[in-house]
């Protein structure tokens, strides 16, 4: 695969715009990669230029009428709809994006750790269970069925009830 293909593939997979931006910066400069992008002349050909519009209406009377007092909204502290100052500040948006990405990553890693621990955890052996119960004052040294040592399971429910399950070992 050509390196331009590899870069495009990486660009598609990059999860963060900042990474995509870095890859795009390379692809714009590299002659091999830039061949896959429309050049300035090609883009200009499909766009409308100011000269294509012909004669435009004189909008000055409307503008003049609408704004007899320049800067009359100086006292306004809020944002003006449609002005250059409306919209969310860039820094906040950046922080929000990073915060959401990090929290998403934390949730995914927490779930992965949970799954791995669940898979790796051994089934409770009687000895382990009896040790737990031993701390609460219940001691089970051994259990025998038909004169042979048996598997034992001791369970304690939330309300304090203790269940002892003895199973004949095969």
């Amino acid at each position, binding site marked *: 695969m050509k390196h331009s293909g590899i870069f495009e593939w990486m*660009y598609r997979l990059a999860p963060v*715009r*900042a990474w*995509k*931006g*870095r890859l*795009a*910066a390379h*692809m*714009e400069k590299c002659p091999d990669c830039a061949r*896959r*992008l*429309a050049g*300035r002349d*090609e*883009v*200009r*050909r*499909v*766009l*409308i*230029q*100011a*000269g*294509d*519009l012909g004669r*435009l*209406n004189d*909008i*000055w009377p*409307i*503008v*003049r009428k*609408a*704004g*007899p007092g*320049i*800067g*009359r*909204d*100086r006292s306004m502290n809020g944002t*003006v*709809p*449609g*002005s*250059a*100052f*409306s*919209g969310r500040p*860039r820094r906040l*948006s*950046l922080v929000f994006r990073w915060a959401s990405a990090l929290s998403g990553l934390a949730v995914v890693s927490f779930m992965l750790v949970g799954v791995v621990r669940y898979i790796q955890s051994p089934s409770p052996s009687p000895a382990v269970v009896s040790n737990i119960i031993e701390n609460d004052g219940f001691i089970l040294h051994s259990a025998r069925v038909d004169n042979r040592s048996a598997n034992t399971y001791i369970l304690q429910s939330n309300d304090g009830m203790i269940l002892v399950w003895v199973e004949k070992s095969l």
Partner: protein
Amino acid sequence: MDEKKRIAACLCGDGEEFRPIVNQYQGPLTALAVNMLGNRQDAEDVCQETFVQAFLHLDRYDPSLSFRNWLYTILYRRVLDLIKRKRRFRAFFARAAADPLRPPYTEPNKATADPTHFLKLLENLSPRERLAAALWANDGLTAVEIAGVLGCAASTARVYLFNARKKIKAELEKGHETLGYL
């Protein structure tokens, strides 16, 4: 007279000094709006609103920045507002059409309502991608300057521009070069 001096004169109360500014930028702003909206009528309305906003809030302009880019930023916001309004309008009429108590809504004939035959090529591009492409190709702005207009990081602007160029190239290779407009 220099553009900055004209703005200073406007701020001192000589509103007539804004007229040459309107004449200078009306064409580029309308072209940019047409490229973003694909509709000349809407583009002219948005352009007019942009100049009104700029005239009203001229005192908020930072002279250390480019005045042209400031106007582009206002225009961009107005275009996004218009797109949102139109989306709400269409959603409202879609609901109205589904209501059996109301007469069904008929979509206006596009051929008569909108004489502009917008390039099929740009239909696949988002408004931000169109803006990035237009500012880059028509006005020669860099990714950093485009980011200033869009209010985003330079890398984000570069991504919009990259996507736009890639999509246009793909469409051109498909053979959509014969489409006309206006």
